[in-house]
């Protein structure tokens, strides 16, 4: 018997030696599968998350949304139109090609090329030319002084791709091949199901500690949760169902993550139609709605009443700001009387069919009725809501704004007169605000810029062509085995530096 045990032990020891150490694998549940891994062709957050692991950018943002070096070690502005980037040396793509200024030029020009029809082209609209000065120096010239340039270059849409890989794969780039310089390389994609990445040993900051990463698309909230609880996935990065967060947190069995989101929810008003052309009416509507109550009802308390047009995590947000228009129905009634609507009026709120937006619209409807404004809620297809509201919708509309991470991207598209007909859906022109936004974009001095945007935020709140609603929050959770994960406000969280205990 003893002898048998000894043999068994010896066999076990041999087996243990023969087996390689278990690979560190991280399985992640997103709401949907990716649509493509070509950063210049996609516009969905789930693809963006995977793209972030495969590619690098010239510059990046950290978890506080501050700009940090990535492929560019340093940069300077010889004049206010020119950006010189000094690239890191010795960086290679996953296919072995070296990263050069010419490779960066190829990527940026591919985004700008109308034939690419890149959803990210808008981020480079101010770029006049891109030039490789030498192997590791790149020059970008803008059409006008454009301070948000760096933020634009941090976007996943402006990721640097391998020219050779793009040309070799042709139309299949993004589905069968995806080659960047990031910490993970693309292994396989089982469409509609999952995409698998493997660590890239030649990553310029040193190899990642995870061996493989699997991103799965699990559309049902409940299923995602069951997968986390049963150990089928280790991480849910954002998109965690609000109603279940507290339960998961209190169970003590998981790590939870929470951060303010870049996005804000608002109710826009088409100021071309009556009575939304009247500033007093607009202010009255702002006072009439109890935003905190809506945060509690829809987001289970995760979020806060908006403190103006920008979320607190957007660069340029003025931290001195208080919630815009705190709930005050008496004041709302007074303002309505002053505006000549003592008996209120009829209006329509348009929303798409997403539960949160629709519920918010219905709650707003209830609050407005308290001050005798009789609102109707009407549902529309998402893309129809986008196009109709751009052309001038017959009332108010529920919309969210995420922007680029910079105050310019957070305000210029929405408020500047030049964007009436597209993203300025209030169809409202505030010349003083236009001037501030232009000055903000043109001022390269960051301290000076902050002051300009602080003024712009106050002006937007005073004019209020919208009802300021809610700054949203992002929630996530992971198994306790996962260490070092940070949930980013832009919902695109890097996995370099994350470890999984075996």
């Amino acid at each position: 018997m003893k002898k048998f045990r000894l043999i068994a032990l010896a066999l076990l020891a041999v087996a243990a030696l023969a087996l390689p150490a278990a690979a560190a694998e991280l399985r992640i549940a997103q709401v949907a599968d990716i649509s493509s891994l070509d950063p210049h062709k996609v516009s969905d957050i789930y693809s963006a998350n995977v793209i972030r692991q495969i590619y690098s950018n010239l510059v990046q943002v950290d978890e506080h949304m501050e700009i940090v070096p990535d492929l560019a070690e340093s940069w300077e502005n010889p004049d206010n139109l020119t950006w010189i980037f000094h690239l890191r040396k010795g960086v290679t793509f996953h296919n072995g090609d070296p990263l050069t200024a010419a490779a960066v030029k190829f990527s940026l020009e591919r985004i700008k090329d109308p034939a690419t029809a890149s959803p990210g082209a808008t981020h480079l609209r101010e770029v006049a030319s891109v030039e490789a000065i030498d192997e590791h120096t790149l020059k970008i010239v803008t059409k006008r002084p454009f301070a948000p340039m760096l933020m634009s270059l941090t976007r996943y849409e402006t990721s640097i791709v391998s020219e050779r890989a793009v040309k070799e794969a042709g139309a299949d780039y993004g589905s069968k091949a995806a080659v960047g310089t990031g910490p993970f390389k693309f292994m396989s994609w089982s469409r509609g199901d999952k995409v698998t990445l493997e660590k890239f040993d030649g990553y310029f900051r040193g190899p990642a500690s995870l061996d493989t990463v699997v991103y799965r698309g699990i559309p049902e909230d409940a299923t995602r949760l069951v997968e986390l609880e049963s150990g089928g996935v280790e991480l849910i990065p954002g998109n965690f169902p609000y109603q279940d967060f507290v339960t998961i947190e209190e169970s003590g069995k998981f790590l939870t993550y929470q951060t303010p989101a870049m996005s804000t929810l608002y109710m826009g008003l088409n100021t071309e139609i009556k009575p939304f052309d009247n500033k007093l009416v607009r202010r009255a509507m702002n006072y009439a709605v109890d935003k905190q109550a809506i945060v509690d009802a829809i987001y289970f308390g995760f979020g806060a009443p908006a403190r103006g047009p920008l979320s607190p995590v957007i660069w340029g947000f003025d931290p001195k700001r208080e919630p815009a228009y705190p709930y005050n129905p008496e004041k709302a009634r007074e303002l309505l009387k002053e505006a000549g609507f003592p008996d209120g009026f009829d209006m329509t709120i348009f929303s798409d069919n997403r539960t949160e937006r629709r519920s918010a619209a219905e709650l707003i409807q209830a609050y407005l009725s308290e001050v005798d404004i009789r609102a109707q809620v009407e549902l529309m297809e998402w893309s129809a809501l986008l196009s109709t509201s751009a052309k001038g919708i017959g009332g108010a509309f529920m919309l969210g704004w995420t922007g680029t991470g910079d105050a310019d991207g957070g305000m210029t598209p929405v408020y500047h007169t030049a964007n009436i007909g597209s993203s300025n859906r209030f169809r409202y022109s505030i010349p003083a605000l236009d001037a501030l936004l232009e000055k903000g974009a043109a001022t390269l001095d960051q301290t000076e810029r902050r002051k300009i945007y602080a003024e712009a935020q106050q002006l937007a709140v005073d004019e209020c062509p919208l009802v300021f609603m809610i700054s949203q929050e992002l929630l996530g959770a992971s198994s306790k085995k996962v260490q070092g994960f940070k949930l980013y406000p832009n919902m695109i969280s890097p996995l370099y530096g994350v470890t999984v205990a075996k």
Partner: protein
Amino acid sequence: MLRYFFKRLMFLIPVLFGVSILIFSIVHLAPGDPAEVMLGPAATQEDIANLREQLGLTKPLYVQYGIFLGNALKGDLGRSIKSNAPVMEEIMERFPATLTLALLGMTFAIVIGLPLGIIAALKQNTWVDALCSFLALVGFSIPNFWIALMLMLLLSIYIPILPSSGFDSWKNLIMPTIVLGIQTMAVIARMTRSSMLEVIRQDYVRTAKAKGISDRLVLTRHILSNVMIPVVTIAGLYFGHQLGGVVITETVFSIPGLGRLIVDAIRAQDYPVVQGGVLFFALCVGIVNLLVDLLYAVLDPRIKAQYRAAK
């Protein structure tokens, strides 16, 4: 028989043609367009116009339909707007999962539903009958997403023996099969029971019994072969129904099938994928109906005789 088969196959052509016109118009006349969905709320009018141009959406509708039809006849359903992959490739990649599920669901429905119906009929008005009927009623009335969640809770969390989502091994298929098949199972059980009860009372059954044929032989030769016709009809109809129901099952268990592909494509207004996917579904349902009709001939000599006469 073969001629009949080909004649029926030819009938599919106008059906598919009709479906193609219908789905093309619905998709293109619905408000919104893919360029707007892709570019999101920040898009400028120029960006949208440029993307539309690139996607070929600026041409008149009848030209777009002509191009679509011409390519479809060559087996080319275009490329997905969202992923830029060929639609045919996406469908073929997703179809095996859906077909597997639908076949397994149907097998489950028949394997469980048929005996349940037979037993209930044979033990009519006893507690066994009541139990079988109760099970069938429950199976039919409970929404399948609820069953899915309860199964998941039970078999993935409380007794963790099955994975709750994905499509990696046979274990992934057990819960979706039950969820997908349970409603059809209930319908088949009830259908079997009622047509059994009808057949049992027929004169030829009494005659067979009077001749002293064993109960088992009476059941298999005289009763079941007559019960099968309505059951096969129902099963055939419900196969199409299941292909539709697969959408919910695929979503809840996140199985990469055709149903989810089409639903996601509808959300993104990915015209080529919606058109191709629906056309493909129509083809599947058409083929299943055809197979059911052929199965009649196998089951019922009278129908076979009709085919011969039609020659």
